């Protein structure tokens, strides 16, 4: 009976999920109360009812503290009462899975790391060259959400409907990872993204339906949907037979419900920087023991701005990313004035003065030839860590799970991201980048490489590497060419692999020839590193490149051109490989060196030129005075 009810519930849930209109609004054109501002800058008072998602996937009854079962509130149905959920979900943080959204400038990917199969591979739903779709490596949207949803505000892949029947059942139990409005907009210090019962942990436990509520100060969630049997029904919960398994349950904190069961949400429109930092923190390992207190924050934050002062959006959440050229992909009306140039220099064609928005200083750039502004982005001189002879390892929130529990704090923990790498962007300007050398097992067919399903790799090449000890630092195992040969042979015998098995690592493509000998190819597109531009942290003007003179970049040992970029690879014998920075800049290395060398003589050039001008001026003055003397003589009527 219960199983039958469960099946009916699942079917009803499916039909609701797959139905087209799930928003609080009857349709997208209908504006809700909170979709359009009346212009008041005062904070809105959010004393509202809580609504859950019901077993049909639709809006449930108001949550009361004595309800049974006690369900987590759904942001779609709670916040969606006044703010069009579908409109919000079209925003930049949530629309990665929408194939119709132009991806814009290359961004930080999700990096799947598994040292047991010597893999670090960039994944992205957005169609960015150099990245791969999660399904290409066998990751379903559900699995992707479990792995990476920890550092997302929900939505996106978390709301994609599963296609496999077994996944559908699990989805009914876990729910969907809805947009968590509270990730950004909760002004209460009790917002918990990363602690032991916080948002990230709930995602790992597959408590997607409970994650948003658990992240707030209003409720606590225990248990795990991951370990619940397929027969478990969260809407008619019964304790599983195995007493050691704890089903996901929510407990609302005392006294949060008013008399009519409304609950107060401390909602802020201006998102504090700390909220953004959970997903967007960077740590550059300048020293071995670098910690966040030893490096300075972005100069804009130090000046009193917050992230959202520049990165703005309306109800559509089409947040500005703030790079030059974003106008080609964004319809945000502030996109032009939200870039570095737009804010500091303004638009020349504007009707009124736009330079100096938000008190931004208007830079004079004295002594810098204008050609620099054609060839360099603003970030080339002003952003990221000061370049050194060797690139640094960098850690990011999303890649290294910063801010969550049980993070490997070792500087060598995978994935290995190196920075800053000064390279040419698509717009032809040089900018600092973070760089990832992909390492993965793939299949070569018609000169294209597609990654092999991770499960297949684990069952084949993974068994070869299973004997190697993994370092506690989270670094690569010591991979040898023998490992690669055995791994490729193992994959070659796997019938489901279409194409010739190859291994990509350290900028090279490894393959076996007809005789079984290992060969390598250096310039294959699939082996090229994936790079994304960095914009933060911005250094103050006194710490920008060029502040100490032209020699910051134009000297024969300047890191900007001649720094060494570490080539990260699991292969032990090739760990010391480097590539010169100039190799990423589409510039001839000799020319770069020769041009830098000429700057040695630049002071002499100035002295000689000024000296010659002085001589010429004296000659001109002398003969001008003689001419004047002649004129005076004639006017005085004397010979």
């Amino acid at each position, binding site marked *: 009976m219960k199983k039958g009810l469960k099946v009916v519930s699942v079917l009803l849930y499916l039909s609701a999920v797959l139905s087209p209109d799930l928003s609080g609004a009857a349709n997208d054109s209908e504006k809700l109360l909170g979709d359009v501002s009346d212009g008041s800058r005062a904070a809105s008072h959010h004393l509202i009812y809580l609504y859950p998602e019901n077993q049909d996937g639709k809006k449930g009854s108001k949550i009361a503290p004595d309800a049974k079962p006690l369900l987590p509130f759904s942001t779609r149905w709670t916040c969606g009462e006044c703010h069009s959920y579908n409109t919000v979900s079209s925003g930049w943080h949530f629309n990665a899975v929408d194939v119709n959204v132009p991806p814009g400038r290359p961004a930080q990917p999700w990096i799947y790391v598994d040292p047991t199969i010597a893999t670090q591979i960039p994944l992205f739903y957005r169609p960015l060259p150099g990245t791969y779709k999660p399904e290409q490596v066998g990751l379903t949207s559900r699995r992707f959400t479990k792995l990476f949803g920890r550092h997302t505000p929900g939505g996106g892949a978390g709301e994609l409907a599963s296609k496999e029947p077994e996944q559908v059942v699990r989805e009914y139990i876990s729910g969907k990872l809805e947009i968590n409005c509270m990730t950004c907009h909760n002004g209460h210090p009790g917002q918990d993204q990363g602690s032991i019962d916080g948002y990230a942990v709930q995602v790992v436990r597959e408590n997607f339906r409970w994650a948003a509520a658990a992240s707030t100060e209003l409720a606590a969630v225990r248990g795990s949907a991951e370990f619940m049997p397929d027969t478990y029904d969260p809407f008619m919960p019964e304790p599983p037979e195995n007493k050691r398994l704890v089903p996901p349950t929510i407990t609302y904190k005392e006294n949060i419900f008013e008399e009519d069961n409304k609950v107060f949400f401390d909602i802020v429109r201006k998102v504090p920087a700390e909220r953004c930092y959970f997903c967007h923190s960077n740590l550059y390992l300048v020293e071995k023991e670098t910690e966040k207190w030893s490096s300075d924050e972005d100069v804009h934050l130090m000046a009193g701005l917050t992230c959202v002062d520049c990165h703005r959006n309306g109800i559509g959440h089409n947040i500005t990313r703030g790079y030059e050229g974003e106008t080609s992909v964004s319809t945000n009306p502030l996109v032009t004035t939200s870039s570095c140039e737009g804010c500091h220099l303004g638009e020349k064609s504007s009707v009124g003065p736009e330079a100096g928005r938000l008190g931004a200083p208007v830079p004079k750039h004295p002594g810098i030839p*204008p050609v620099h502004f054609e060839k360099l982005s603003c970030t080339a001189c002003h952003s990221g860590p000061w370049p050194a002879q060797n690139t640094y390892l960098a850690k990011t929130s999303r890649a290294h799970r910063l801010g969550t529990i049980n993070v490997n704090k070792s500087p060598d923990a995978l994935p290995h991201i190196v920075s800053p790498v000064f390279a040419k962007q698509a717009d032809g300007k040089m900018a600092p980048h973070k760089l990832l050398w992909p390492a993965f097992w793939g299949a070569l067919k018609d000169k294209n490489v597609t990654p092999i399903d991770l499960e297949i790799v684990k069952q084949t090449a993974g068994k070869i590497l299973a004997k190697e000890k993994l370092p506690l630092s989270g670094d690569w195992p010591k991979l040898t060419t023998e490992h690669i040969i055995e791994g490729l042979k193992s994959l070659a015998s796997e019938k489901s692999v279409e194409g010739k098995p190859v291994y990509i690592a350290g900028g090279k493509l490894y393959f076996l020839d007809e005789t079984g000998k290992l060969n390598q190819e250096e310039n294959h597109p699939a082996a090229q590193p994936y790079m994304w531009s960095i914009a933060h942290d911005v250094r103050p003007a006194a710490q920008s490149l060029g502040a100490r003179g032209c020699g910051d970049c134009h000297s024969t040992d300047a890191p900007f051109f001649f720094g060494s970029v570490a080539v990260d690879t699991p292969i032990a014998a090739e760990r010391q490989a480097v590539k010169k920075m100039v190799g990423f800049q589409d510039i001839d290395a000799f020319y770069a060196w020769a041009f830098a060398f000429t700057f040695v003589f630049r002071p002499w050039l100035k002295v000689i030129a000024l000296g010659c001008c002085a001589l010429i001026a004296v000659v001109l003055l002398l003969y001008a005075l003689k001419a004047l003397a002649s004129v005076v003589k004639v006017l005085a009527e004397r010979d």
Partner: protein
Amino acid sequence: MFREIAITAFIITLVVLALHCIAFPANKKRCPLGDALRRWSPVSILRKIVHLFTLLLLQQKISLLGVLKKLLFLLALLCFMVLAITGFYPLLVMDKHIYGYFVMVHATFAPVFAICVSVLAILWARNHRFNRGDWPLLQRIIERVTLRKLSAEEAIDENVSIAQKITFWLIIFLSLPLILSIVSSMFPLFGTYWQELLLAAHRWTALVFAIIAVIYLYLVIRTQLK
């Protein structure tokens, strides 16, 4: 706009000089250019070009100073050619700002050229100074106004025409903004707006300088032919 104006100015200058050479031959014999027009054989043309080049090898006095003057002039000429090519070729032919090795060569020859121009200014200023003999019309006007007869001075150097003197002083005068406009941009004094102005000033001054230098060289050749 600069590209179009520069190309037009160079073409007009060369055409005017060619027409002037044909219309007013430098010596009693026909202008070398006129011979070339009449005799089109490649050998004849080549011979005339070499002859024209040798005319730039000015007569020198045997003294050390004479040798220095001549060498400086030839060096200045070489530097001028290199600077003109590296400066104008990318812009006029490739429609790009000066870049790459063009910049390096240009910046390498520029101080040498500056030295040559400044030293030649000192060495040749006296020979190119104006005297009353250069301005007969002005002399007549002054005599009318003052009712005094001015004594005509002899020209210091009969080989230097008034046009040559004018172009010489224009070259010396223009070399100041030409050099200063680019050198001053190398100091942290001027912001982006002024940097662009200085660059434009250098570009336009260089155009006028190059045209006047071409005219001056033409006049030098004509003087040598007399």
